[in-house]
Structure formats: C-alpha cells, structure tokens
C-alpha cells in the first residue's frame, strides 16, 4: 500500500501541523496533549462544545472546529480514541463559564475515555454534559453488543448544536437538542474496499474484487454482511430501506439527507448514490429539504459510502441554515 506520508508514527502530528499552518485564522493547535481549539476560545457565556475520536476520519472532527460548530476537537491516534488528558485540556480551553457539552460517538474506547475526562473536568468545577450518538442501524441486536455505533449523525449534531450554542442556549438545552438530533437520525454504511492504517500497513479486512461489505463502521472494521457487489441502485435500496424502516421515516416527513463518502469514492459516484436516494425517498413520500454530499466522516482511503437521514422540523432547519465557518463546513 502506498501512502503519501513521511513517517507512519508522525502522521497525526504532521497533519495537525498542516491544519495549524493552513487554518490559523480559525483554529489554534495545542500539541501536547493534542487538541484543535477554535481561535477565539473560550467564548465567554457560550456553551462550549467538544468532540473527539480517532484520526483517519478527516475532516471529522478537527475540520469542524470554528464559529457555529465545535469549540474544540481531540484527535486520537489513527482509529484510536483520544485520551482523557486531551479531553480535559479541550474542556478547560473552551469553558466560557456556561459549561461544556461532550459529543461522543458510541464506540467503547471513546465512551470510556470521555467518561474519565468528564469525571476529571467535574473535579475541576466545570459543568459537563455528555451525549453519546448511536445512529448506525447496521447494529441491530444492541442488547448483545456494545450498542449502535455513532456515525454520520455526529457531524449533523455538531453543526446543529454549534448553532444553538452560538444563539446563547444554555447547556441543558444544547444537550437536549443533541439527544433529539441523535434520536431522529439514522445511518448505515458500506464499503467496496478495506482501508490500510499507516501503523499496520495491512488492509483492515480482505474483500474479493466482486464483493462488498454492508454495515461497516468507520474504523476499517468489517461489516455485518458480505455480499456480491451490487449496483448503486441496489446498494442504496439496501441501506436506505434499513434506515427508513428503522425510525421509521414516513410519508410526509421532511428530512436532511447526508450522502457521505468513506474517503476513496469519487464525488461523481456519490451523486449517483444521491440520485438513487432521492428517487427512493420520493417514492415513499419523504421530502429531502436539506442535503449534504461529500467526504465528511471518512475511513482513510476506504471506498464506499454511508447514508444518514435526519427528520427535520422548522427549528432544526433554522439551526442547520445558521452561519458556520470551519475549515470543512462553511456557509452563511
């Protein structure tokens, strides 16, 4: 596997130095422990929002630090949760006196490390609320697993909660909004190829030329099912049906549709996916009122996509449309 890197052990640090050099107007980077912080943090009187996770999912989360979204992000090693000392540093750096929301994807490592960090931050007198996202419908029997994984809805929750915090909403309300977005969101992903972490140099799983993995997570882990490669229409039918029937999303519902690339799938294919999704939802009487298409929560160079739907109401539309100014998401 070829990689455009200098040193497998220095990838995360060197990428952070690149982000610092490129986006110093929006963010500053603390290197030990590693944290990406909004340039003007802490914003007095505003709820701080932090997230974090393994590296290798760029632009998530560091690319979403800035006005109207995250106040800080903690990058772990590739596909490895960040550590409590990073999360504590981030929490302290963004606390403007109104408390701090931790948005945590439901992966065992992320949850355990954020729990330790919340204990430490509370010990220092900072008001912390944590919301765990778990929108992945590929995980069905959550009684016998670590529960549904947090995936695509995390990006949308960070945007919407960031807008609410910017409006001056208190911590309890921002946290409740985050739980609402998570509760009304569902996702599922698939892969055409595995990915290769810089540390291991080996593919994360083996997949034949004519096979695809359905129900993958975002860390190169294999999916729930392996099938013969299908057309974009068949893949979307498979993913979107599982998503729509899970919540369920019903005729008359307004949704935000998020077609996400896993890192190695070109935008032209994502638009083919979007075409199929649009037709399928239209056929079910579901209206796409907002959309996001592109690579936002990736798995290194994995080829594949995920689909996320969020059921919208007027408040969520307004918060989604509110201005955002981060390295990876910018409008208004």
């Amino acid at each position, binding site marked *: 596997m070829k990689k455009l890197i200098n040193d497998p052990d220095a990838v995360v640090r060197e990428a952070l130095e690149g982000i610092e050099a490129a986006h110093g107007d929006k963010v500053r980077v603390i290197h030990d422990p590693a944290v990406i912080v909004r340039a003007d943090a802490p914003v007095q009187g505003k709820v701080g929002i932090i997230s974090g996770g393994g590296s290798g999912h760029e632009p998530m989360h560091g690319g979403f630090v800035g006005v109207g979204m995250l106040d800080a992000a903690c990058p772990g*090693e590739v596909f490895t949760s960040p550590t409590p000392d990073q999360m504590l540093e981030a929490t302290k750096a963004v606390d403007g006196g109104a408390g701090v929301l931790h948005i945590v994807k439901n992966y065992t490592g992320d949850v355990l490390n954020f729990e330790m960090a919340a204990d430490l931050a509370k010990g220092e007198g900072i008001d912390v609320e944590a919301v765990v996202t778990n929108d992945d419908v590929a995980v069905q029997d959550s009684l016998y697993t670590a529960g549904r994984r947090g995936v695509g809805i995390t990006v949308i929750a960070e945007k919407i909660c960031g807008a609410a915090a910017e409006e001056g909403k208190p911590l309890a309300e921002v946290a409740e909004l985050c739980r609402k977005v998570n509760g009304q969101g569902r996702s599922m992903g698939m892969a055409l190829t595995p990915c290769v972490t810089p540390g291991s140099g080996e593919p994360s799983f083996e997949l034949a030329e004519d096979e695809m993995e359905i129900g993958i997570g975002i860390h190169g882990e294999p999916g729930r099912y392996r099938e013969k490669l299908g057309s974009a229409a068949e893949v979307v039918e498979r993913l979107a049906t599982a998503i729509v029937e899970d919540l369920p999303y019903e005729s008359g519902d307004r949704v935000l549709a998020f077609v996400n690339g896993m890192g190695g799938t070109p935008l032209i294919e994502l638009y083919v996916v979007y075409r199929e999704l649009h037709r399928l939802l239209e056929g079910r009487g579901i209206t796409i009122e907002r959309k996001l298409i592109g690579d936002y929560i990736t798995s290194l160079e994995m080829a594949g996509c995920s689909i996320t739907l969020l059921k919208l109401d007027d408040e969520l539309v307004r918060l989604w449309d509110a201005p955002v100014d981060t390295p990876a998401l910018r409008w208004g």
Partner: protein
Amino acid sequence: MSIGAADVRAWIGAYADTIAEHRVELVRLDTAIGDGDHGTNMQRGMNAAVEKLEATEGDDIGALLKAVGMALVSKVGGAAGPLYGTLFLQMGMATTGRSELDLAGWGAALEAGVKGVQSRGKAEPEDKTMIDALLPALDALRAAEADGASLGDALRRSADAAEAGMKATIPLEARKGRASYLGPRSVGHQDPGATSSQLLLAEAAKTFG
C-alpha cells in the same frame, strides 16, 4: 519469598518487552475482530510507562503502579487505555506505601485491579474480553492461596488460568467492544485484550516466581 519494588520495575520492563515482541500477533488478532491497533497502542503505552517508571524514584510499589496506570491512560487510547490504566491505578491504590508484597498482598492488589476493570468496562465473564483472562487468574490465585501454595506456585497457577481463559475466548461470540459488532463472525478468533492480559500475568509469574 516476596515481591519488592525492584521486582515490580522488572515486571513492567519485561511486560513492555513482551508486548513489543507480540505486537504483530496482537495487531493480527485485533485486525480479525477489531480495528487492528491493539498491539501498536499497547507498545506505545508500555514504552511511556517504562519511561515514567525511570523518572519515578523510591520503593513505594503503589506509587510505581499508579505511575504506570497514568502513563497508560494518557498514551494508549482506545478502550485499552482506560481499562489497563484503571487496572494499574487500582492496583496502585491497593498497595500505596508498601515496599514489599506477599502472596496475600499481591492477591489484594490484583483483586482491586480486576474489580476496577470490571466496573469501568462493565464486561461479564464470557463477553470475550480481557476479563476472561483476568478473572480466572484472580480466582486461581485465591484458590492457590487457600491451599497454602507458595508465592511462585500461586503465580504459576494464576498465569495458567489466564492462559486457559484466553484460549477459551476463541469459540465465544463477542458481546462487548468493537468485536461485538461482528456478531457470529467474532467466533473462532482469540480475543486480543485477553491475550495482552495473559501476557501480563505470565510475565508476573516469570518475574516474581
């Protein structure tokens, strides 16, 4: 026979070496049912632990074990960071101020550590986790102690039980951690966390026995 502070330092050093030797194997086990980073993460953490021990003076075993725990919490990441970090922090709490441990003292430390891991990770036996190596090792140690076994003998029985527990994870379906997402596809693979835990107890038997 007893365990002194120098022995604890030697044990941590030996464990760091064995993790380095088994890194590829741990990565391979974790690639099969997880995300393939366990060996790399543990090696990074143990290197930090060894450095931290070198910078920690004195013969307070509790302080040494807590230093190892803090290094692991801040350097490993993933689920293994908080879990192994908690194991050593709790063992350190149970041995604060002690410069020597007999079999009962080691048993109390291990028990505190294993209970800490259970309460942090909420895993039950047969969930296919490190608990499946740690819990049988603790039980075997306590049983050996009740039999009036020597420290060395008890440590060997404890390490043997950890090995049996580790191997017994192969047919299990994972119910905790990332492997649980594979459902039945996790069957047939040895749990990487149980493997690194077995290595820890095997090194304890070799170093202290």
